[in-house]
């Protein structure tokens, strides 16, 4: 009974697919994007939005991202991050406050939120 319930809630209720920028091609709907921040980071997370490009961790496809809300300590160019959002007109519009950085490979005991 529990198993059926779990299957139902996890399929019907929430749960966002996790994708790399290379897998995004034109897909709509909310997803979690995983990738590496590349190039210059511009803009203001508390104003018009932080702008940067997210690339496949091992790959070349990149997508522009706009993000508002709190920025984790570890965020900067070259870091791997996760962010939830939706692709709109070629730009990934992130849900405010959903950015998480992955731990740098060294000392991976704890996450940063």
């Amino acid at each position: 009974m529990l198993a059926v319930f779990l299957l139902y809630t996890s399929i019907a209720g929430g749960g966002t697919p996790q994708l790399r920028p290379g897998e995004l091609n034109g897909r709509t709907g909310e997803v979690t994007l995983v990738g590496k921040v590349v190039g210059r980071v511009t803009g203001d997370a508390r104003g018009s939005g932080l702008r940067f490009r997210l690339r496949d961790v091992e790959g070349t496809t990149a997508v522009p991202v706009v993000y508002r809300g709190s920025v984790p300590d570890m965020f900067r160019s070259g870091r791997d991050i996760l962010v939830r959002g939706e692709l709109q007109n070629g730009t990934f519009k992130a849900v405010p406050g959903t950015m998480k950085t992955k731990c740098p490979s060294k000392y991976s005991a704890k996450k940063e939120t």
Partner: protein
Amino acid sequence: MPELGRAALIVCLGLAVYAVAAGIFAARTRRRRLAESAQNAVLASFLGALVAAGVLLTALLRNDFSFVYVWRHTSLELPRAYTVSAFWGGQEGSLLLWLLVLTGFSAAAVLLGRRSAPSLLAWTVPVLGAVIVFFSFLLVAVASPFTTQAAQADGLGLNPSLQNPYMLAHPPFLYLGFVGLTIPFAFAMGALLARRADELWVVVTRRWTLVAWMLLGFGQLLGAHWAYVEVGWGGYFAWDPVENAALMPWLAATAFLHSVMIQEKRGMLKIWNVLLVVGAFALALFGTFLTRSGILSSIHSFTESSIGPWFLGFIGVVVAGSLALIVSRLTLLRSKTRLESPVSREATFLYNNLLLIAFCLTILWGVAYPILTEALRGEPVTVGPPYYNFFLKAFGLPLLILMGIGPLIAWRRASLRGLGRTFAWPIGVAISSGLVLLALGAGSSIPGLVGYTFCAFVLASIGFEFARGTSARRALAGGSWPAAFAQLVGRNRRRYGGYVVHAAIVLLAIGVIGSSAYDTTREQRLRPGESMGIGDYRLTFRGATSERGANAVEVRALIDVERSGKRLGTLRPGKNNYVAEQQVSNEAAIRSDRLNGEDLFLIAEQISAESVFLKALVKPLVNLIWLAGFVFVGGALIALWPDAREQRRFALRYGRHEALARA
């Protein structure tokens, strides 16, 4: 030096292999001398692990950068204490810590077991040996902490966010807890292998489970406090896979601690208990795997870390092997008695177990979901906090109310009239406090209000139980109230220690509900002199400071805090810029109110002389969570404390059996 470490690990592995082989042979052929020799091999393996750990510790303290491990995890300017904590900072070192604790616990279990349950040891030693074989093999062949290189001038250093006192204590506590669960597992398997149907393994390992469970619980609270104070996003638990990794074995062990009481008292639930102890141990391994394999920093790739597949393989072997053993011993595990009524103490224990395990499985499902969906659909799908929070309410609230019902309900079969009498008081207290809270405005969160009403019910029922026991004791033995109370607790340490732990869980629940269901958050950009209000607080931005600290530039926003017109002082939230590591760290400012346990939590971003972006959170009652940690440990210690009367009962019950086994 590194050769000594490597040699010590190889010796450790050899001894463990011997303990398994000789132990099995001795148990099959009933050779006592050989069995003792296998036990001695386990004792000696501890010395091997001790030497290896000593080598690594010395290398760390001497900044010997010819050790790859030392070079990778420390640097010359790292303070001494954190150089020591680098021992468990990396994968190899933490595996060595696992081995050290494992062999230490195993040696202690063997020494204690020789006195209390020698007949059980025969098959327990090979099981312990097998676990030691796995860890020492990993350290010898797959992830050696003693790999060397050409000596380097300086090391790579330790991540700044981990350079704080919590990281000295939090990981070892978790490891002690994880590893401690090995002992009950080994004794359970040992009893099954020896075809024993009695409860001796349960009795012998009760304290081991309690200790492991206490350390695991306390370690998690330390981690939560670290996240709250140091990471500074305003929360303490985020249902992150690492956090879940420690929570799952704790829940399984909690279920186990409860259900073994049923087995001891009524001879029921034998299969269930063995399953739980296997589950708790497998989840502890899984927890180590999650925190140590790197799977969580990259949920995508299983194969990134060298130890991942080994761990999964070992978990598979443990689960499959134990299940096969349980199936082959099913006839031994038949219960002699059955549940007499769904309204009884036994039944509440059963419901508690089902809820705890259901909660544990939902968390496991959530953690494994990305992996499963990636395998099935080609893309991982993650579930977030809403998923977990839903189940926390769905299973946590009934668990809470069971804590109030369980202790007061009769064994075997409770009459409904008796129930009405017993629960009139607690229910009355619960309803009236619910109404008072509603009048005070707690109705803004229905789950919160329900939770608090349940909390009041549990506290009233615990208080009632203590009062009833004390007055009965006083009627029996006379004397003053405090003396009767002390006698009551002293004579039933296990029971009343358990109630104290229940009270701790209620405190925890009050804190969690207060800080999550009744918190307020506001964020606003402030120029100098401008202020914002949150709750009764008024926050005014006075300006910014910037100072050069030891290895960071410390930028702070000065925020004047007033409550209801009264000045409370200045808080300094800000950021540290670690120049060398090119890393920013958020330094939240917290003002705790000692009287009502409320925190004002400030996060400052984009700090300059002209403006600051201030995020403020008011978290009512959050400090009860940390208080609960101490009450929890206190209760667990009461339940653990050696009890001469219990020893005598134990000797009476199992003494003859043991004497026969020894003959």
